[in-house]
């Protein structure tokens, strides 16, 4: 048995088993170093897994050597590989470059537990992504959720606590809904393995418990993914979480739930429910469109930088969903690649915000006048991230917007309305983003503002790393494109 065969297990086990050890690290910066090293290791594993998946197709791993459906199966497909890359890279980069930001927001004696929780989030998220078993997804969803409550609760503002409480309540409702759905499916099929479920559902298609189960799973996961109108937990959680946590979560947390959602909708239900595509698009297209437009609209009038971007995240979830709800290969590709590209854009933006926050006291717009003159590098990276968000060509965001519009246009007349919606929201994005740019570059500095300096070099380096990734993947998107094409094909059952 070579180590390569164990990679799917190691992907989860490495961060998970090191997390408890991090709790014990008392030395200065030791916990950080250990967490970062672990995260890097996870990233390396993700990269090797991606290579394997690209070479040989989906990888399956039987936990405890018990074959599915009796044991728990781990399954890494092109889709999971993409998500693994996003999650591990987001964690690694934020940890590696974000130490100063975390140090400034969190007392040192609380840090070991914080970093342990961080690794548990990582382990939970990758655990969800590699899981091939419906209940196992629930378990790791809880690991990641509980740990993310901890990370958000580390926010220094007292408002973090009510926000995280709301998140906890809604997150648990979401997970429980999911559990009910899985229970109903299990009741009618007797299996928990996703692949097995797909096969066995064929015998009991279109009976009420299954349809209700589909509904509950969709609602539960949509809650976790902050799909409009189930997004209310997100803005405050993102706003009051420590900046690095926001950067990490904005890049990957909701996407993992979307990943599970798409896997269920397409792998489990798509083949078996006659009306499924119809239901799926009738419910989700309007929700996605309204979500995109409303959330962008709220962002237009929001003045707290982080909350503004949080609303923009909700709109972006709408994009992903819109692509997916087309239920075509091109639509899915667009949605999936947008997960990747949005992670890049939001990562850069929140990273830049973390840099800003090391210098300014408040992230409200009225407090940021002229900040770009003092922090040119930070704001330049912010601009790149913003352009990617708007979808300016040459940035990663453009790729997904292009694919999304072409996918939507395939729908004929409806498609034209959807294109209009997408374009209008892009312009709204341009407007809310440009408000920030104008204030930062041309606004008057607030009177009481202290002497500002450029952010710490190391954090800037991280910010620019992500910002340049936006451009690199805007000009050379072959890797994410390849993975999302394969992912879309496998979701639609066109790949073995």
């Amino acid at each position, binding site marked *: 048995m070579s180590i390569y065969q164990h990679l799917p297990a190691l992907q989860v086990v490495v961060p998970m088993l090191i997390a408890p050890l991090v709790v014990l690290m008392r030395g200065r910066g030791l916990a950080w170093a250990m967490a970062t090293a672990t995260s890097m290791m996870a990233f390396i594993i993700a990269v090797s897994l991606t290579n394997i998946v690209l070479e040989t197709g989906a990888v399956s791993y039987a936990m405890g050597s018990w074959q599915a459906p009796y044991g728990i199966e781990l399954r890494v497909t092109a889709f999971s590989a993409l998500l693994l890359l996003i999650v591990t890279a987001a964690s690694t980069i934020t940890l590696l470059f974000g130490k100063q930001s975390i140090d400034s927001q969190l007392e040192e004696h609380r840090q070991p537990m914080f970093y342990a929780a961080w690794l548990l989030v990582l382990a939970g998220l990758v655990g969800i992504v590699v899981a091939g078993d419906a209940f196992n997804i629930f378990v790791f969803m809880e690991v990641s959720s509980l740990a993310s409550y901890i990370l958000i609760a580390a926010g220094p503002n007292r408002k973090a606590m009510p926000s995280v409480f709301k998140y906890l309540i809604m997150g648990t409702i979401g997970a429980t809904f999911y559990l009910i759905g899985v229970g109903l499916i299990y009741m009618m099929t007797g299996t928990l393995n996703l692949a097995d479920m797909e096969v066995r559902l064929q015998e009991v298609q279109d009976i009420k418990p299954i349809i209700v189960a589909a509904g509950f799973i969709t609602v539960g996961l949509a809650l976790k993914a902050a799909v409009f109108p189930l997004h209310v937990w997100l803005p405050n959680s993102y706003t009051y979480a420590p900046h690095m946590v926001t950067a990490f979560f904005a890049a990957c947390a909701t996407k993992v739930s979307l990943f599970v959602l798409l896997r269920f909708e397409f792998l489990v239900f798509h083949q078996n429910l006659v009306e499924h595509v119809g239901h799926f698009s009738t419910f989700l297209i309007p929700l996605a469109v309204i979500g995109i437009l409303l959330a962008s609209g709220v962002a237009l009038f929001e003045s707290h930088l982080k909350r503004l971007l949080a609303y923009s995240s909700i709109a972006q979830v709408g994009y992903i969903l819109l692509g997916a709800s087309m239920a075509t290969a091109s639509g899915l590709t667009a949605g999936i690649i947008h997960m990747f590209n949005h992670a890049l854009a939001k990562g850069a933006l929140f990273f830049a915000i973390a840099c800003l926050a090391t210098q300014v006291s408040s992230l409200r717009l009225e407090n940021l006048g002229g900040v770009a003159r003092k922090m040119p590098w930070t704001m330049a990276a912010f601009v790149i991230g913003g*352009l990617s968000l*708007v*979808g*300016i*060509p*040459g940035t990663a965001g*453009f*790729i997904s*917007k*292009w*694919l999304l*519009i*072409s996918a939507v*246009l*395939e729908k004929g007349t409806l498609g034209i309305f959807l*294109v209009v919606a997408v*374009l*209008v929201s*892009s*312009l709204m994005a*341009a*407007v809310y983003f*440009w408000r920030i740019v*104008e204030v930062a*570059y*041309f606004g008057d500095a607030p009177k009481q503002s202290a002497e500002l300096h450029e952010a710490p070099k190391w954090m800037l380096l991280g910010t620019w790393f992500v910002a340049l990734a936006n451009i690199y993947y805007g*000009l*050379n*998107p*072959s890797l994410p*494109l390849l993975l999302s094409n394969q992912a879309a094909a496998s979701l639609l059952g066109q790949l073995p």
Partner: protein
Amino acid sequence: MTSGMQIIAALLVPLIGAIGIALVGRKSPNLREAVTFITAIALLVIVWTMLPGLFAGERPEITLTELLPGLSIKFQVEPLGMMFAALASLLWIVNSIYSLGYMRGNKEQHQTRFYVLFAVALSAVMGIAFAGNLLTLFIFYEILTLSTYPLVAHKGDGKTVASARVYMGILLATSIGLFLPAIIWTYMATGTLDFVPGGILEGHVAGPAVGLLLVLFVFGVGKAALMPVHRWLPAAMVAPTPVSALLHAVAVVKAGVFTITKIIIYIFGVDFLAVEPSTDWLLYAAIFTVIAASIVALRQTNLKRLLAYSTIAQLSYIIMAAALLTPMAEIGASLHIVAHAFGKITLFFAAGCIYVASKKTEIAQLAGIGRRMPWTMAAFTIGALSMIGVPPTAGFVSKWYILGGAFQADSYIVIATLVLSTVLNAAYFLPILYIAWFRNDETTPANNHGEAPKAMVIAVTITAALTLLFMAFNQPVLDLESQLVGITR
């Protein structure tokens, strides 16, 4: 160096220059300007050495990375783009001389940022000129918009920022809202976005859809300033004059009409457009813009705003000519790109000279200024005459060809428009000349100024000379662009 590499060099040289300028900018202004000149000259050499190959019928091309399946970032040099690139690279040098005088004479802030972004904008212009497919063109089109935004907002006060917002807003909104969907639509219909002589759309799209697609394209390319998406151009006049001169008389606006011309020739195909009745509106829209913009220009009291409206009218000349779809008119269109560039940059340079020397911006303040600033005003006169189309200036040549094209097409409405607009041009330029040369200078502000800084005067003289010389030496451009006719036949 292969021709393909030359294209890349043309793109990279300004960028490298920009980095160089940024690096030395803080330390030494002299070194910074030196870098700017070296970059500009290097670019000129690179671009102009490509000319002989083009005359010989070469079409160098290079493909970079594949952006989307079947869609690459691709460059290909063809006559229209070659001419545009040659023009921009030539005028950049002149403009750099001019900027030197203007920025220092005016003691502007953030000069380094200015030069850096100028170089970036030039790189984007090269990208547009050499783009081998619509996607590449679109990418550089947006980069041009973004890199010029800070130049427009250069002053940074409330009014400037508001105007810059209009500039950015219109250009971005039209490009994302109309241009991009048009491109994607084209791609979905045809499966390619390459510029192919004779067009790619024929047989893929038909009926009113063609007209709709043309609407998306023409108004999506907001830089062409076809009414009603022209409002950004007067707004952009808050920028420092070198920006207005090179970018908003030459590079940016010409990028717009250049894009439309390219789309007409290489995407739709002239023959396809000619048989498709749903696209006739373009001609009338252009005619309307020519007349309306001229009438608005009549009522302007601010010199730069008047020039801006004049630009809008002149741009629509080019679109109108291109929309005539006759060989002679296509040549006229491309000639007018050059002719108007020389003339308008001269006018803007002159306006800038006046501003730096006397801080005067309104037409009424110009009384008698011809005597204090003879060189500047002489150049201004030449530019104005070129706009009207009086021989021996550049404007005459292009108008002649456009008129010829109109006769070829038997389009009397175009002929009438040409006549009417000439009258209107005269009506708004001649009073300025009269005021400048023949009125007494008693108006405020202070009239105790002399000629503008040397560098600026030299620059304005060069462009005025070019305006005159083009009357005689237009053969190379004609030769080059005749290749287009060969294509369109």
